[in-house]
């Protein structure tokens, strides 16, 4: 199959199932809390409704307020297209160099932060300040984590890191020393997606908001874009971590239509499993106070550093 076809299939699948991730998380959390919970596909209806609502623009905003939703959603879509989530060997695979990915992630966060500050309210400023701290201090961790993967697989494109074997997800089996790096990646994913213990996506109290504070003043289509971007990022990270850890098939250029169906099905399965894990995590541990997030970030950094050191050591043996 053509690599362009692979990319198109991946775009379609990921963009379509993205709201499902948020819905599934909320559904599982509700069940854990003993509530009935909304149906997992509620976010689809929510975003559709929001697109039709009135767009209220803050008077203190400038062109930045209007650019932010596009920039944030654009960076999330870029990740969805480029990373090996459903298919490996897509047309844009060379662009999935890990340094580029880290930079585009940071770019998206930078625009999110600037959009939050443009509203001129203290909520926005507070959320932006916290988010910027987390993103800045997470940058070395991201680079070190992926550097360890790059060393182990010999490829600096994330696509290449996963495509190393015929069945994706065998990475941990072939290289068990990468467990620490994978754990660091999980921590990075939690921090980037505003999940426990760094942030609570369900709250609107100023003491506890980070991501929610920055999107507080958006409404209508812009809010839909921002929320969808958050869901997309969550999906992307969930699938990425799953592809490193779970031996379930991905589409490749050599796949037949049956393989494509199998891969799509396994994608949904991966998503359900990962969202279940996230919900379990959020129901079990408490969110950290922001000033203790330093410990979280330091822990992730040293985990990534040790993972890289282990990868280097294992090459000597």
């Amino acid at each position: 199959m053509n690599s362009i076809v692979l990319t198109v299939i991946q775009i379609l699948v990921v963009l379509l199932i993205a709201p499902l991730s948020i819905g599934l998380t909320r559904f599982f959390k509700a069940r854990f809390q003993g509530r009935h919970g909304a149906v997992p596909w509620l976010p689809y209806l929510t975003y559709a409704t929001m697109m039709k609502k009135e767009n209220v623009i803050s008077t203190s905003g400038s062109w930045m307020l209007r650019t932010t939703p596009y920039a944030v959603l654009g960076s999330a879509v870029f990740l969805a297209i480029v990373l090996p989530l459903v298919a490996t060997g897509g047309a844009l695979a060379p662009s999935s160099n890990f340094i580029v990915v880290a930079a585009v992630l940071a770019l998206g966060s930078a625009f999110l932060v600037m959009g939050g500050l443009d509203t001129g309210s203290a909520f926005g400023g507070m959320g932006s300040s916290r988010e910027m701290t987390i993103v800045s201090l997470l940058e070395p961790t991201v680079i070190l984590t992926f550097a360890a993967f790059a060393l182990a697989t010999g490829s600096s494109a994330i696509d290449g890191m996963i495509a190393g074997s015929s069945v994706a997800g065998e990475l941990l089996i072939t290289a068990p020393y990468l467990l620490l790096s994978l754990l660091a990646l999980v921590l990075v994913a939690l921090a980037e997606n505003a999940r426990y213990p760094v942030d609570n996506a369900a709250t609107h109290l100023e003491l506890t908001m980070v991501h929610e504070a920055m999107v507080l003043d958006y409404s209508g289509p812009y809010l839909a874009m921002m929320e969808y971007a958050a869901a997309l990022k969550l999906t992307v990270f969930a699938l990425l971590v799953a592809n490193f850890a779970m031996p379930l098939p991905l589409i490749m250029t050599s796949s037949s239509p049956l393989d494509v169906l199998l891969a799509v099905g396994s994608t949904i399965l991966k998503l359900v499993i990962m969202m279940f894990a996230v919900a379990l995590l959020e129901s079990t541990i408490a969110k950290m106070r922001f000033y203790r997030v330093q410990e979280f970030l330091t822990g992730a950094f040293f985990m990534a550093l040790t993972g890289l050191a282990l990868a280097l050591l294992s090459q000597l043996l």
Partner: protein
Amino acid sequence: MSLTTLAIALVISVVGTFAAGLVALWPDPRAHRASNIILAVSAAFGAVVGIYVATGSNVSLIVPEALYPVAADGSAHAWPMFYGMVFGLDRFSAIFFSILSVVTVLVAVYAIPYLEHYAASYNVRSVNALTALFIFGMQGVLLSTNIFGFMTFWEIISIASFFLVLADGTEASRKAGFLYLIITHIGAGAIMSGLFLLSGGALLSDFSVIALVTPELPEVTFSIALGLLLFGFGSKAGLVPFHVWLPEAHPQAPTHVSALMSGVMLKIAVYGFLRVLLFMLPGVPMWFVLTIVVLGVISAIVGVLYAVLERDIKRLLAYSSIENLGLIFTMIGVGLLAGQEGSVDLTQAALYAALFLAASHAIFKTGLFLSSGVIIAAVHSRRLEAMGGLAQRMPMFSVAVCVLALSAAAMPPFAPFMAEWTFLQAVVGALTEATPMLKVALVVILAAVGFVAGLALFAMVKMFAIAFLAKPRTDEAAAAVEPKPGFLIPIVVLAFISLILGLFSPLVLNKIGAVDLAPADLGTQVISTGGGGLAPLSLFLVIAGISLALFLLRRLLSDVKFERSYQTWDCGQPTTPRMEYTATAFSAPIRFFFRFFLRAQKVVTATPLTPNNPWVASRTMSLLVSQVWYDRLYAPIGSGVTRLAGLVGRLQNGSIQFYISLILLALLVTLIVAL
């Protein structure tokens, strides 16, 4: 273009700069414009020459030779009036010469409205003349091929910039200027001593002659010379702990001069350092390379941390310069280290990444300083807390500054990202086959550069957001309007150059000599190193394509006209611009997370206003961030020197006879002992 044409253009460029300086001194009010226009035109000539020589493969331009081809008796070289020194460009200095010239063109255009705006604060004639002299000095340094010329023009740079720092005559400028003068002169002395030691004491040595002499130097002399040169060039470039003059001097100079100092003068220091290291020395000991790396990493980290904390926009940019220069030195150090440990790919990639970062830093830092000049002119304050709301009032300007700020933060698709990408990718690629010591060093550097990149983004987002977004925090900011074309055009051009340089970085890298990093043909524009590849243009097209698609989709799926303006949600209470986040608040988490290093102190003083009610008080809060090298390094040295001077002062009892006897004693001792 023939060599003669190039030589003539080069001579026009240099003479034009000097002439601009002379024209500036004319008492006519039109002299200001005339001087800057002459400066811009001659710099344009210089840019053409510089780019041509830098991108040609075998061009080496020696000025007397090119103008007077060798006569039959071989006597036409060198101008005897200059002690037989030759001046010329080779490929390496041409890179820096083109950076200097391009920046000068734009700064000269900016200076016309800028000095007209500030005609009351500065003596415009002397500022223009000194700026021209400053640029002339920098051109001279790049064109010199021997010690005497190099040091003469180096001193011209130092003295001209000293007077420029003093230009507005305030107390703060005087103090900053003197600190700058002291450190730059000690540094110049160190460079001169180092070069003397290397050349074995010959003042008029050509650099090529020194290259022949250095392999035979004794070990101790060589090491001392290296230490002196590192101190000299490092203090000029702003390496910690010799950087203390940078955050004081750069903000005090007129803005276009700050742009020149930060954008180009620091690169001249890098040029001098690399000229010695790569072209004059046979090889350097391991301790020296490690020192460069350590100092570079420390400078980058310290620079970015203090940039994050800074609330004065020009000091923030000065610290950001320290950070970028630290990164450049780190890359140079890693390149040398890799060369010594046998990873040749990493050497080439690291050194070219350093050069490319130097070039891109010159572009964006100049742009940012020029924009800070516009902002300060509008808001009449350098504090970030007095700005705000400028994006609504100066839309085109704010877009250009946003582009420059994102470049400064090393974001794709702009040029500095390409340089950092090259470096990081090459490091990762070299990890597999590196020697153990190199592996450890590379891992540490990977972590450090990642850390610095993250915080650099923080500092730039803070600067842009607090200055431009939300509502204006003061009345002056509320009254701001889009700046005049004379201010706006140079900044927009610089932002554009930063983008183009990034998009076409493979081509540029190939043309300046990194043939292993990037191919020459325009079809495959990829930088490939260390096992990875980056195609900047296609990356940009992908991002642009996605944005366009989203733009169209939104129009399809929702009604664009269904919109309303309303104030920000405020819980039902009226909000004022004072309630917006300030720069101090925005950087508070970083202050907190790094409190052990930064030791920021908040002092709140409350003075009661009425005698019976202590709660009605006027409160002052000061936030003091101490700097460890002031307390541990500079203050003890300063007090030691003062104490020594006091001791020597006891000798001065006022009696002439005592002084004369001392002189006679010295004479006697000299005659008996020395002769």
